[in-house]
């Protein structure tokens, strides 16, 4: 039997953090004279109680976690806080059902941004803050996981991003601490910068902070039903577009930059692909907006860039209701949703580097057809890609495709139409948010879906967020055997 105490420890710490975060909306509501502050306060107390219970009740002298314990911690470290985060929504003025609240909380924490709430503009500010706080915390958790946990677990090719073995001069723990500090600093710093810029561009202070939080985490919760379209300001849209693009960058880059290694950024093949693909998408959508919708070229570029950046990074903020666009832009957005951002970012999806690996491998395949006996090795950033990494990536891709197909089929089985099922499944797995079509498209809402569909989608979000294998491995019988 696996020793569960270290797992409970981790979950306990996370719950305590969550309880701490709940204090913020409580304070805000208290200042606004909203009676809802009590809900947040009680929820915080409850969460803190359980958190401390887990933390103190399972104290252990063992410092290191085994692989199995890491898997359990990574899976339940998302699920349990997700459920506790739903508390304020159940007992607040919204009176959401348990399903809706859990959906909303998990959607927030996984930085998906799919919402069941309508009428955001009139909600108390505490709840709005809570939603974007979930985005922000979730984004931080994703980066931490992508930098520290997944590479060591060798999930889906992430082992290529193992931190290099530190030299003898520095100790591993101090280095890890430094990396964590730099990344946390960069994350908070970019959030602050964005908030400042948005405030100067004309948002109120609260709106600026809220949108900065949900932008950098590529979450996508907004304070208005019309999302960014509500503000109708070019400056705000451009700032948020930049914020989303930054959210899709590998955050380890900031660490390298902090060590004066700025050139590494330019030489990184992943970034080139990321920007290249995004630019292609923007060109396509912009041309369509000019040609079919008759927008002025600059307006088209602004909206096109915003939409493509939002979909590719899995943010889900929007300026135009692109769910009804149909045809070319729909296809572009649909496929870009699968691509996602870079490794070690807050984005979901398959991620750019996996496509690079596969593309490199396909090219090598082609050369090998002509020269059967040549030794050809695919490379990534001038490093050879080991065979087993390719295997991992392919396994990942296969499971991704399989879960997409299964989820889409299950959703359709519950009565969703073709487009809603297909794009809803893609959007949940990629932690994007809106789908296409009239129901769950941008500006729509997930509220009308059947409860079972909401649970499936929430499960899909979690599944996609932890890169699938972390959860999948729990279902292997050998996992539980000693």
């Amino acid at each position, binding site marked *: 039997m696996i020793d569960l105490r270290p797992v409970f420890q981790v979950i306990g710490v996370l719950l305590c953090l969550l309880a701490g975060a709940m204090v913020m909306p409580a304070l805000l509501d208290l200042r606004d004279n909203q009676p809802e502050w009590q809900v947040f306060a009680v929820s915080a107390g409850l969460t803190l109680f359980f958190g401390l219970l887990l933390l103190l009740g399972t104290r252990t002298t063992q410092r290191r976690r085994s*692989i*199995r314990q890491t*898997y359990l911690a990574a899976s339940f470290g998302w699920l349990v806080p997700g459920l506790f985060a739903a508390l304020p929504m159940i007992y607040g003025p919204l009176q959401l059902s348990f399903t809706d609240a859990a959906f909303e909380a998990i959607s927030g924490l996984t930085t998906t941004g799919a919402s069941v709430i309508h009428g955001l503009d009139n909600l108390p500010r505490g709840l709005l803050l809570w939603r974007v706080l979930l985005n922000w915390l979730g984004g931080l958790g994703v980066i931490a996981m992508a930098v520290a946990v997944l590479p060591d*677990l*060798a999930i*889906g090719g992430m082992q290529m991003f193992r931190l290099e073995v530190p030299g003898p001069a520095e100790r591993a723990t101090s280095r890890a601490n430094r990396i964590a500090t730099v990344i946390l600093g960069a994350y908070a710093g970019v959030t602050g910068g964005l908030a400042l810029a948005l405030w100067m561009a004309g948002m109120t202070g609260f709106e600026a902070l809220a949108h900065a939080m949900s932008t950098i985490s590529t979450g996508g919760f907004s304070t208005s039903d019309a999302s960014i379209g509500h503000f109708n300001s070019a400056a705000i849209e451009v700032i948020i577009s930049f914020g989303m693009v930054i959210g899709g960058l590998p955050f380890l880059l900031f660490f390298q930059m902090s060590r004066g290694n700025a050139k590494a950024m330019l030489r990184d093949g992943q970034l080139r692909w990321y920007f290249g693909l995004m630019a292609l998408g923007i060109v*396509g959508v912009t041309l369509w907006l000019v040609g079919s919708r008759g927008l002025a070229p600059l307006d088209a570029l602004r909206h096109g860039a915003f939409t493509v950046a939002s979909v590719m990074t899995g943010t889900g903020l929007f300026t135009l209701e692109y769910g009804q666009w*149909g*045809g*070319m832009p*729909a*296809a*572009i957005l*649909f*496929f870009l949703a699968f691509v996602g951002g870079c490794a070690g970012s807050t984005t979901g999806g398959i991620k750019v580097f996996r496509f690079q690996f*596969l*593309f490199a*491998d*396909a090219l*090598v*395949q*082609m*050369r*090998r*057809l*002509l*020269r*059967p006996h040549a030794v050809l090795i695919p490379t990534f950033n001038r490093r050879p890609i080991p*065979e*087993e990494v*390719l*295997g*991992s990536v*392919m*396994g*990942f*891709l*296969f*499971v991704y495709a*399989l879960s997409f*197909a299964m989820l*889409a*089929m299950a959703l*359709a*089985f519950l*009565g*969703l*139409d*073709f*487009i*809603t*099922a*297909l794009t809803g499944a893609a959007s949940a797995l990629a932690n994007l948010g809106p789908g*296409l079509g009239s129901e769950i498209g941008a500006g729509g809402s997930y509220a009308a879906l059947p409860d079972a569909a909401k649970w499936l989608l929430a499960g899909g979000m979690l599944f996609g967020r932890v890169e699938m*294998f972390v959860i*999948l*491995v729990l279902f*292997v019988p*050998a*996992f539980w055997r000693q």
Partner: protein
Amino acid sequence: MIDVRPVLFVNGFLMLVLAAAMGIPAVVDLLSGDVDWRVFGIAGMVTAFVALAQIFGARPKGRASLTSRQAFMLTVLAWVSTAAFAALPFIFSNLRLHLTDAVFEAMSGLTTTGATVIVGLDYAPKGILLWRSLLNWLGGEGIIIMAVVILPLLRIGGMQVFHMESSDKTDRIKPRITQVATSITLVYLAFTALAAMAFWAAGMGRFDAMCHALSAVSTGGFSTSDANLAHWGTAVQWVAIVAMMVGGSSFTLWIGPWKNWRPPVLDDAQTHWYLMFIGGFAGLLALWQWTVNDMSPGVALRHAAFSVTSVVTTTGFVSTDYGAWGGFARVVFFVLVFIGGCTGSAAGGVKIFRWELLFALAGIHLKRLLHPHGVFVIHYNQRTIPSSVLDSVLGFVVMYFFTFALFALALTVVGVDFITALSGSASALANVGPGLGDIIGPMGSYRSLPELAKWILAGEMLLGRLELFTVAVLFSRSYWRE
């Protein structure tokens, strides 16, 4: 520079076969007193002339032998040139198709896709109807020979597994290539004759029975009625189900020695999955139709089995408008298009054995997560799969999805709507035929698509039929360098 003479020489023989085939509809038209017989006669003579010109103009001195580069060129050239000449009768017959439509129809026929632009089949002259089915049949024969003889040699997409089988002296499969080709052709002929007799016994006219046998065993899907197989009754449809299943099974396995009246095809891992897929999804959809759409159980089972078999074997016959079965059925059919039949059959798609290997690979990735230093081996039909084979399979599947996405995008760019583009691209790549949606759905027609879209689809059919890499390799720089 590559010596193209041997390529043209062999190509000439293939076109001679095509010219000879044109004689058959000519005779049929002559007997039934239709003026189109002249068109077929002249087209046959033109084709024969060009064929002979190639044979005599490019006759090599000694025995003709092909290098692998020439083999790549031959496969592509053979399909393109035969499709071009096969289009001649469509242009000059009473149907008066445009060049685009004629090439689309011919390509769709030869690649055993079965997507049609002709409306009014019930009143079309017999010659044309027979010609379409003949194209299916010849294309099916060509693809089986290619899959068994050429692709394993070229090591396309993991097909070398089957090469090893045929070169292994102790194995059940006859080693010599010509012998294999002859016996496969005989089996193919025998199945066609059996199917024709069964169709006739089930109540079809002799001519219709012949045509449908040709296009069922080749998994082509051209029919002699606009209503497709919905025009005929229950018995005919059950016969078609069996004929399609045989067409989608591995033909190499039918020619091995039978043990106790048991063909080796029944002991093959691929066949088991193939039957499981068809059975599972047919059952599921039958249940869906029975419970949700109130079809009577017998009818539901027949239509579900028919449609699933038709899509999985990439035939494209239609017994009822399954596009109207609701969201669930549409998603299922969309996903099924990617499955494909067995290798060594006339079916297209990704093919079952590749899915099996991918599945095994994902399983290994999962196991390796728990035991990072374990050594895992994939078995397929009781033999170990070397990693080079896995690599090719991965390359193939990745390219397959890239191609699907790229062509779907291209279709939307020329003005096709989202569903039509997505399902059309998937359907053309897998050589299925009908897509989803109002335009190209099971009861629709490709006629109203824009011209460019037809060319794109025709190109995609060819790509899918030749297993992508055969064509893609011609576009690589190293192919043309010495």
